[in-house]
């Protein structure tokens, strides 16, 4: 008997384009950017870069702050819970009368860096104090599993709880880990994804110093127009632009979805994770390619059956080149006809949350049959693929391959298929 399929029954994202996926998707396919220069939040006297993808209007200290977690001042916890509440509602599970037992729902919500914003703020505050005391909500808000903890607590979910921390592949690992729990029978449903907000001078300046992040530079095309800062696969790409946000999927086994009357939106057909074992930050071309192959193999399909490749596409010189070469190696003669795009041009790079945001976007793309564009694109002759430049494109999408790669050499790829009840 074929194993129970894993289906997506809810999806949501909180991004710099909007505090929900509907807004994010609408602006994404319109070719808009969520990036801006924000000296109000990122003081140029402290930050080497003030262009960023910030989420405004929700989170701690705002009028729309979630009162259930008001004491936890770290932004990633708020974004994670907000996206989880939205995905839960998107699945229709907020009705509460579907009979889903809380102890059969897993929560796998990770974060690359956790509550470093709170750590930084509390450290500054404590340094001026006459005693060595630190706020009692520092550690609860700092720990990287607190977004998962609050999703469990506020939604009443008591199955397994895991919080992957796999750098910029975190959200993908969370979704794959959730699928493994479902497949192993440890849970019927899983709330999975990742959340991130790590804007501190140390983190931003560290990324700039290691030349991963776009530096503030007078001659750069972002100097007059911050929306052009992130330009994946472009000839003049010069580093990623940091963002914050969260992406959450609700997964279910197909049989559980039927049992509880949940409507499948897409199928998680395959997933893969592997490790470079190579370098602290640089990707390894062979292992990246291998990860994509593993995911395609795990889905039981051939590369020709992939209709769109949703790229990691950070807008860094090395990553984009390595990734484009991996796509060419796998898709061969067909590579140039395959739509390849990175939404990071529009939403920046939300680090660990990025793969989960992209997963939610892929689910929406399957539903809408639209490929979101790579904005700010200026062709690089060395990367001759179809990057869906600047304008969204209608397409017949049966399957999407989405990949993410993280510092520490950790890779992830997911295959989403269109839901077909036949």
């Amino acid at each position, binding site marked *: 008997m074929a194993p129970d399929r894993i289906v997506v029954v809810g999806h949501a994202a909180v991004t710099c384009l909007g505090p929900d996926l509907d807004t994010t998707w609408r602006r994404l396919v319109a070719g808009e950017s969520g990036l801006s220069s924000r000296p109000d939040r990122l003081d140029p006297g402290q930050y080497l870069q003030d262009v960023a993808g910030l989420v405004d209007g929700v989170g701690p200290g705002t009028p729309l702050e979630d009162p259930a977690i008001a*004491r936890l001042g770290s932004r990633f916890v708020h974004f994670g819970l907000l996206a989880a509440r939205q995905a839960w509602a998107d699945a229709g599970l907020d009705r509460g009368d579907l009979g889903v037992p809380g102890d059969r729902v897993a929560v796998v919500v990770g974060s690359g860096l956790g509550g470093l914003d709170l750590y930084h703020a509390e450290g500054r*505050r404590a340094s001026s*104090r*006459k*005693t060595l*005391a630190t*706020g*009692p*909500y520092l550690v*609860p808000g700092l720990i990287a599993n607190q977004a998962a903890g609050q999703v469990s607590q506020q939604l009443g979910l008591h199955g397994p709880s895991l919080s992957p921390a796999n750098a910029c592949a975190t959200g993908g690992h969370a979704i794959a880990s959730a699928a493994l729990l479902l497949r192993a029978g440890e849970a019927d449903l899983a709330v999975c994804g990742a959340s991130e907000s790590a804007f501190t001078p140390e983190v931003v300046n560290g990324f700039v110093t290691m030349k991963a992040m776009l530096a503030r530079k007078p001659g750069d095309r972002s100097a007059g127009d911050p929306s052009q800062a992130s330009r994946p696969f472009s000839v003049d790409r010069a580093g990623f632009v940091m963002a914050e946000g969260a992406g959450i999927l609700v997964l279910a086994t197909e049989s559980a979805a039927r049992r509880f009357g949940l409507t499948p939106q897409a199928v998680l057909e395959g997933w893969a994770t592997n490790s470079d074992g190579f370098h602290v930050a640089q990707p390894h071309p062979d292992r990246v390619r291998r990860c994509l192959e593993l995911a395609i193999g795990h889905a039981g399909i051939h590369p020709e059956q992939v209709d769109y490749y949703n790229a990691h596409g950070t807008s860094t010189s090395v990553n984009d080149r390595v990734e484009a070469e991996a796509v060419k190696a796998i898709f061969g003669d067909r590579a140039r006809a395959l739509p390849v795009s990175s939404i990071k041009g529009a939403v920046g790079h939300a680090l660990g949350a990025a793969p989960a945001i992209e997963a939610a976007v892929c689910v929406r793309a399957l539903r809408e049959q639209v490929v979101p564009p790579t904005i700010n694109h200026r062709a690089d002759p060395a990367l001759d693929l179809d990057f869906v430049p600047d304008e969204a494109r209608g397409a017949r999408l049966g399957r999407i391959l989405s990949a993410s790669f993280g510092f520490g050499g950790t890779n992830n790829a997911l295959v989403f298929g269109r839901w077909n009840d036949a």
Partner: protein
Amino acid sequence: MRDPQLFDAVCALIRSVVKLDPSVPIAPESTLVDDLGVDSLDLVSVFLEVQDAFGVVVDEEDLNGIVSVADLVAYVEGRRASQAA
């Protein structure tokens, strides 16, 4: 209550820490834990806020004796006096 301004300031700190609904009144005899829903972590937060706002050093050994808002205000008054001396 010798200093009504201090009472008001302490009340504002408590409201801020525990996100107290504005409709909930705070009286001098209101107890922190039972009346205002200040849990053990909140209690530490309140004392840190007091320490930061009034420049007094709060001795953790003294905290057990503080039950009501009036107790806390009196404690701050006492610490200010002794630490200013």
